[in-house]
């Protein structure tokens, strides 16, 4: 084992760049810049490019005038059935009624990404001001005082507006997440941690709400997520609210919980690459290597 895989070398360079006063240019370059020396030979780049040119020409020719030459059957059908969806914005109708199952799975993708990011590394390391500093910075404090309540109100409004106008839960969730990240980085709010049960419950709430509503209507309408007569609007509004909050929490998690380099728990770097994939010791009673040991 040598080079970049060597745990010792890995730790040593990490320590050097942290304690060093100046910018370690030799180290910055490979991380933040890419001089292209790792890319394949230039001939390969050109050959892949030449392969893709005819594909592009074919696709462009095939797509030429496509929008005008086809029958707009689906837009007509959507316009015809929109009154039955309980909302007047056709996009919201598609997302929460016609194709509500896709939206359910879409939030499940967010949950999957969040759980996957949690599984990558321990705890969280947030970049930001030292705790309590936001109060001493008048400009920042003013921005926070103004921006965060505005974002919150706008998010509520966007969620409600989604049933009739171009807006909805995902836009609102993104806005809320922006406010959350701002508060976290300014250290006004403790970042939500993966270990906190409320975080898990809210993050799961979007999918859970969808599945529970879907199953609850099953005995009445005979199909998953088929809203009973007259219930579509309130159910959609409730689902949108749960979605907005869940999306916001998940996006903040995806922001604060990605790993940092180097990982502080140095035990991870001393894993024997030939042994147990989870880095466990062979003997069941053997103590794991002390993380604080030099």
């Amino acid at each position, binding site marked *: 084992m040598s080079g970049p895989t060597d745990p010792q070398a890995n730790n040593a360079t*990490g320590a050097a*760049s*942290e304690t*060093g006063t*100046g*910018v*370690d240019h030799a*180290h*910055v370059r490979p*991380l*933040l*810049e*890419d*001089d*292209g020396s790792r890319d394949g030979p230039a001939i390969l780049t050109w050959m892949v490019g030449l392969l893709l040119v005819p594909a592009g020409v074919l696709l462009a020719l095939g797509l030429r005038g496509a929008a005008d030459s086809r029958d707009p059957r689906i837009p007509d059908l959507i316009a015809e059935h929109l009154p039955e969806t309980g909302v007047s*914005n056709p*996009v919201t109708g598609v997302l929460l009624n016609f194709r509500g199952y896709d939206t359910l799975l879409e939030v499940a993708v967010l949950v999957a990404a969040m759980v996957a990011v949690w599984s990558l590394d321990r*705890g*969280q*390391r*947030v*970049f*930001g*001001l*030292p705790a309590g500093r936001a109060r001493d910075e008048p400009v920042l404090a003013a921005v926070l005082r103004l921006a965060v309540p505005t974002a919150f109100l706008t998010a509520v409004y966007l969620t409600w507006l989604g049933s009739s106008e*171009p*807006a*909805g839960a*995902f*836009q609102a969730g*993104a*806005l809320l*997440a*922006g406010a959350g*990240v701002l508060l976290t*980085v300014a250290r006004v709010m*403790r*970042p939500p*941690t993966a270990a906190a049960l409320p975080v898990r419950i809210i993050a799961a709430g979007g999918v859970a709400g969808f599945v529970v509503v879907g199953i609850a209507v099953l005995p009445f309408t005979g199909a998953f997520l088929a809203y009973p007569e007259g219930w579509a609007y309130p159910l959609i509004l409730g689902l949108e609210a749960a979605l907005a909050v869940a999306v916001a929490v998940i*996006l903040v998690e*995806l*922001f604060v919980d*990605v*790993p*940092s*380099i*180097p990982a*502080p728990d140095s035990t991870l770097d001393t894993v024997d690459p030939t042994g147990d994939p989870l880095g466990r010791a062979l003997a069941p009673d053997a103590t794991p290597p002390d993380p604080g040991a030099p």
Partner: protein
Amino acid sequence: MTEPLTVGFVLDGLVALLLVGLVFRLLRTRHLFEAIMLYVAYGLTLALAWVRLGAPDIALAEAALGAGVTGALFLNAWHRMAVRAGADERLPMESDP
């Protein structure tokens, strides 16, 4: 080329060209920070394209999620790399208990 050349057509042409140009530039550059900034610019241009295509819902979502959140995610990753590389010490990394 049966249609007359209108202002709208020229505007759409410029937006489409700008989109492709930004992508070409950001995928060719060797500097990560520049690429991320170009990505955010691309996202905002894309929001404009969605408006021109008659999809205001998507324009709003693109500005918030595509350019905003995704740009922030890339910047976050860049920052973590920059701290590791010793290039950025303004915002120190803190470990929460």
